[in-house]
């Protein structure tokens, strides 16, 4: 029974502390406005009730100065809140470069998570204390939403594209993981837990039971098996773009557009190759839609990311 009274979530991420401070400020400001309106209504209702002896001479039917004042004052105060909240929001999407990746695939009604070394989890995510994390997420079917109240963060997980979520856990323990976007029959049980561990424990945990190759190694294997390397390798006779170090590179497209290659671009290039054809190349690549699972697409992207890292270290 006692747990019924502890409904407030713990504050367990860097964002949570900032969020709570902003929330406190907003509650004080909105609370002050609500209290002022309520007190005025109650006071006027009592003081000017019918039959009271209150002075009612010169009752105003409007007052331009007062009206402008009570428009401008709250406007300025709330604009301050807007800027504060927008700044904190932007920070959520500016992840540190050293963030540890986790790959998340949602489906009706479970979360499938995979660490970079190939360690897989279902409906559970183990993370080390104090380590910035980057979750790359997609859905296999409908829209879901990855929600950890103790971290004060939430991100919709959308089929057909990647969304990213960054957080840094600041407290060890177990915390709720919920699906926050309605997704059908078992929506309310599509959850699990986030386990924040001391870094040493986490390292030990991560090594246990991984017979799988790491994600990038798996991606390389897929890259060869599906014949990607046949065209995209340096010595190929087929004229295809070089993929080494593609992530983060600026790409010029045939129709004149320019973009920076990110996960969504590579994903689309595999499944919808005619969407963004690189300038100077023929649109001859076949689509791999239906041949690769979401996990496999993520693995190939991670392989390409690693070639970028090798590329960079080789050129140094």
């Amino acid at each position, binding site marked *: 029974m006692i747990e019924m009274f502890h*409904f407030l979530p713990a504050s367990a991420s860097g964002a949570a502390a900032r969020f709570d401070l902003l929330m406190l400020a907003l509650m004080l400001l909105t609370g002050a406005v609500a209290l002022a309106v309520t007190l005025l209504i109650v006071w006027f209702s009592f003081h000017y009730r019918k*039959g009271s002896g209150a002075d009612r001479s010169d009752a105003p*039917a409007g007052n331009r100065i007062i009206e402008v004042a009570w428009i401008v004052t709250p406007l300025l105060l*709330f604009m301050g809140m807007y800027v504060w909240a927008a700044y904190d929001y932007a920070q959520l999407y500016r992840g540190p470069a050293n963030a540890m990746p986790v790959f998340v695939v949602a489906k009706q009604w479970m979360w499938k998570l995979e660490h970079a070394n190939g360690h897989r989890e279902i409906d559970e995510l183990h993370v080390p204390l104090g380590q910035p994390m980057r979750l790359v997420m997609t859905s296999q079917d409908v829209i879901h*939403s990855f929600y950890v109240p103790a971290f004060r963060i939430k*991100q919709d997980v959308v*089929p057909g594209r990647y969304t990213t979520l960054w957080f840094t856990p600041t407290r060890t323990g177990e915390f709720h993981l919920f699906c926050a976007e309605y997704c059908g029959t078992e929506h309310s049980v599509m959850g699990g837990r986030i386990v924040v561990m001391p870094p040493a424990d986490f390292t030990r945990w991560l090594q246990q039971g991984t017979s799988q190759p790491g994600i990038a190694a798996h991606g390389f294997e897929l890259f060869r098996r599906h014949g990607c390397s046949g065209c995209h390798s340096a010595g190929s006779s087929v004229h295809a773009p070089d993929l080494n170090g593609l992530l983060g590179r600026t790409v010029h497209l045939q129709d004149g557009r320019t973009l920076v290659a990110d996960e969504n671009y590579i994903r689309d290039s595999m499944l919808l190759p005619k969407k963004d054809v690189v300038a100077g190349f023929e649109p001859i690549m076949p689509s791999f839609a239906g041949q690769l699972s979401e996990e496999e697409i993520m693995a190939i992207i991670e392989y390409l990311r690693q070639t970028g890292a090798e590329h960079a270290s080789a050129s140094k």
Partner: protein
Amino acid sequence: MPAPANSTASPAAATASNYLTEGTTLKSWLTTYDHKRIALLYLVSITAFFFIGGAAATLIRLELATPAGDLVTHDTYNKLFTMHGVIMVWLFLIPSIPSALGNFLMPMMIGARDLAFPRLNLASWYIYVAGGIFTIAALIAGGVDTGWTFYTPFSTMFSNTHVILVLVGVFIVGFSSILTGLNFIVTVHTMRAPGMGWFRLPLFVWANYATSIILVLATPVLAMTLLLVAAERLFGLGIFDPALGGDPLLFQHLFWFYSHPAVYIMVLPAMGVVSEIIPCFARKRVFGYRFMAYAILGIAVFGFMVWGHHMFVSGSSVYGNMVFSLLSFLVAIPSAIKVFNWTATLYKGSITFSAPMLYALGFVGLFTIGGLTGLILASLAIDVHLTDTYFVVAHFHYIMVGGAVMAYLGGVHFWWPKISGRLYPESWGRVAALLIFFGFNLTFFPQYLLGYGGMPRRYHTYPPEFQLLNILSSAGASILAMGYLLPLGYLGWSLFYGKRAGSNPWRATGLEWQTPSPPPTENFAHPPVVSTGPYEYEPQTGTELPQ
């Protein structure tokens, strides 16, 4: 006071012939072109739908009294909250004040004999009832589990329920909204009595006029969106499902482009009602009339530019979201103006507290809380935590139930003597108003805390730490239910046993009070001529004649 040439009709004349006694057969009701009778047709039908939607809510609150799913199955629960949302939004809230009270009052308030297109008005009701029955039949026979928001690709490719039937029902009902809106717009433009300038219009007319513009502009977008959902679901046309080459966020943009303005469709008429009630019971001119009218138009225009705030964590652009957040803060300004002006109207008034006034003051308080928590949700970083939790559920119920339904009931009580010719029992009216106020707060205030605690919405089962607040909420819902059932009893009773009201029991200033209660079919014996503004109340002297 704007006085028509012959304003003091005798009670005997009132009972001799009025719109209620014009015809008593069922056929005379079903074929009437009289806006007042059509208003009553709406009143009866929306009341029926309200209690069906309320029954679904009752089951939801019963189920949520315990963390486990022990009353109904997952699927049944999902169908219940879908049914509750669809019925309450499209079959009750949107038509409630405009189609029932607005239909009755708009022509009378501007001194007209009827709406501009009486036959179209009756057609609107038939379209509404047809769509409503279609929707209810689909909901009860098989049910739909998509939520009232029909998010894709769940609704198009994954749900195994009767999505298409309900879509068709909502699609049909939309045309009723469009036609009613069109009728009101033309009526206000072309049928105002001599002397009734735009700035002599009661704020109720302004509010319903602005609402009509939203209805006409936004509802077609909903209709198109629903057609696109049907096209993908029936023919596999890839519009929203990425597996077919579509974009699921496109649906959200289209849906909220209608559904955010739809919130203002619900709350603007409510503001109109409250703007009539407060001056009458404070015996005072409304404070800042012009600002009030401009605020109504401001809300209607700005309301079209904030839909993106429903999508802050959907994966849409960070910079786009910053713009939508800013616009959402700005749309709060006209609402704030209205709250401050209602409060200032009380200043130096001579205030009495009949049931309509209790509802109106309750509205101001609850709308203020709903609006301010809306600002919290508009704050980007905080919305990341609070969106899709019970905080949102609490917020929009404060606006739509604490706001719109309170005002609707206040309006029904305020104009009941005009509509029925009888007085309702005042002490019962006050008891119901207070029950609803306390029941409402007990139901929905705990949901703010649940949301802050992290309980997601649309959850059939939940972790045990949320139980206490859910029990409070369910307890509040049972009080709220009693509060809603009471008026059904005493208003019904008053139809037969209530005291005769006379033409103007509240000593109110609007043109609708210058004609007998119930009004004659032609509304006014002689067309009124208007020479003053709408709220010429004198708190001290009481120049109005006693009844």
